[in-house]
């Protein structure tokens, strides 16, 4: 066992390390993403301040050593608020991606593997959903479901279901018509075995990469909806809300919009870079 680990796992790990170290952009993205995740899980690691209580004397101070991102109109430390906001924003993002992946993936799998009228129905619905821009679809869902972070997250996820269903179906069809599946069928493997052992493992790769890519898109959508005021109610910090709050002070306190927005952009950029690396590795795999 020990030798197995030494000969198989270690070189693989070393290979990954080399892959990352040769790409400084990717390394930076991984660090950024890890920091945001840590901030979401353990905000106490980064700051001891309270995100909701400020010191009125210190309102609207610019960035300084004491207040990295400055303070807002109530004298609250903006850095603290951004750190605490990442928890809610990331949770919403994960919910959105999970909804899109699970619902869309299942629809695509069923549609592609069983075909027939079921496939027709699913694909026509997907066609229609794809004719409506995703942001508008989530806006429509929000106006039906009501406001709040979770509802926004579900709306964003549902709006992406169509894309996932389509990619999953295409992958299932590709694998299902591949020669190795025909070979398995010709050597007597039943449908269930083919679905579980050949189709699902080979088809899920691109869909998982798409989920990684969806992560960045979901952060943008969730924060756009909360910027528009459909997310968490006021005192609760959320990335989009922070930018919206700072909007009234654009002319006087530039830091209030710049820093939260920068964090969103950097997180999305990191997520996209990581998903691109996953995509690339997958292609090299073949």
């Amino acid at each position: 066992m020990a030798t197995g680990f030494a000969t198989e796992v270690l070189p693989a790990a070393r290979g990954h390390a080399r892959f990352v170290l040769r790409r400084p952009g990717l390394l930076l993205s991984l660090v950024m993403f890890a920091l945001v995740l840590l901030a979401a899980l353990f905000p106490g690691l980064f700051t001891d301040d309270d995100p909701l209580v400020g010191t009125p004397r210190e309102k609207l101070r610019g960035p300084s050593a004491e207040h990295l991102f400055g303070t807002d109109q109530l004298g609250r430390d903006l850095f603290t608020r951004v750190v605490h906001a990442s928890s809610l924003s990331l949770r919403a993002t994960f919910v959105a991606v999970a909804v899109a992946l699970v619902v869309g993936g299942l629809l695509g799998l069923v549609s592609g593997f069983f075909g027939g009228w079921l496939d027709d129905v699913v694909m026509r619905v997907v066609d229609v959903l794809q004719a409506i821009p995703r942001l508008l679809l989530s806006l429509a869902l929000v106006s039906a479901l009501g406001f709040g972070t979770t509802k926004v997250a579900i709306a964003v996820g549902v709006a992406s279901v169509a894309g996932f269903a389509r990619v999953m179906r295409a992958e299932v069809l590709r694998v299902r018509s591949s020669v190795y599946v025909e070979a398995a069928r010709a050597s007597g493997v039943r449908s269930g075995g083919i679905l579980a052992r050949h189709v699902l493992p080979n088809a899920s790769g691109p869909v998982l990469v798409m989920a990684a890519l969806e992560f960045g898109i979901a952060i943008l959508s969730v924060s756009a909806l909360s910027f528009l005021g459909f997310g968490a109610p006021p005192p609760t910090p959320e990335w989009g809300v922070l930018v919206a709050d700072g909007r009234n002070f654009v002319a006087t306190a530039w830091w209030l919009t710049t820093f939260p927005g920068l964090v969103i952009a950097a997180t999305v950029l990191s997520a996209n870079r990581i998903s691109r690396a996953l995509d690339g590795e997958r292609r090299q795999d073949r």
Partner: protein
Amino acid sequence: MRRYLVRRLLQAVVVLWAAFTVSFIVLFLLPGDSLSIKLGGLEGTATREQIDAVRGANGLDDPIHVQYAHALGDALTGDLGTSAQTGAPVAGTIVDALPQTLQLTGVAMVLAVLGGGGVALAATFTRLRALRQVLLSLPAIGISMPGFWVGLLLVQVVSFQWGLLPAMGNEGWESVVLPALTLALPAGAMVAQVLAKSMTTALAEPYVETARAKGAGRVRIHLRHALRNASLPALTLAAVVSGNVLVESVVVETVFSRAGIGRLTAAAVDNQDVAMVQGVVLLAALVFVLVALVVDLLYPVLDPRVGRAV
């Protein structure tokens, strides 16, 4: 050709009908019964009888399929219902707001295609590795920026620090520049990404090698051989990009306090004005369908492999 056109038009109508149906299901059937929304502030003061009276007058007591049939019939005659906020007809309100938004999205689309296409072409044409790397990383950055943040940054720098262009409003051409730029950034990034990728693919095709073996120069190879083939996948994206630009105006018009479809939509969602939201959904579907139709009709001209008569 005519039969093809008729068939494509029919398909477009079917998509619109389906969009109507989907939005009807989403907006009118999901839990938050639209009645309570319609009554708005009345809720606290209204008596049971009053509520029932309003319900009856709005046809909300009818079985759902009857409501659907009524709504569809009205929609076919151009009546998309009345706005719950203003009481004005939805169709008229949208038509009034449309020119402002079309001006904005039109300018944005032009900027996106020119800018995105330019970046993609420059990136694939240059022989300087460093420049290519920089150019190729631009689209990835472009699609990662939240639109509302970009808009606010532009306002901060261009309007307040430099005092150059207005930060808000609909007055004159100056007011279009910043919002159009904000809208064009993600759209242009998308164009650049797709075009750069398909240019790279096209340049690696064997027919490009044939052209090089003939002794053709780089400009000729890029523009006459690769670009023509590479623009085809980019073209199929036109419908998606124009739909996105239209809807991104919700954010951008809010940031720049411009009147238009986007502001209308934001207000409608805020007030849960479902009739208005459905109207905007139908508008977006219409834009998508029309652009897709134009692309489909244009495609055989650009790609001879797609049969004209089919």
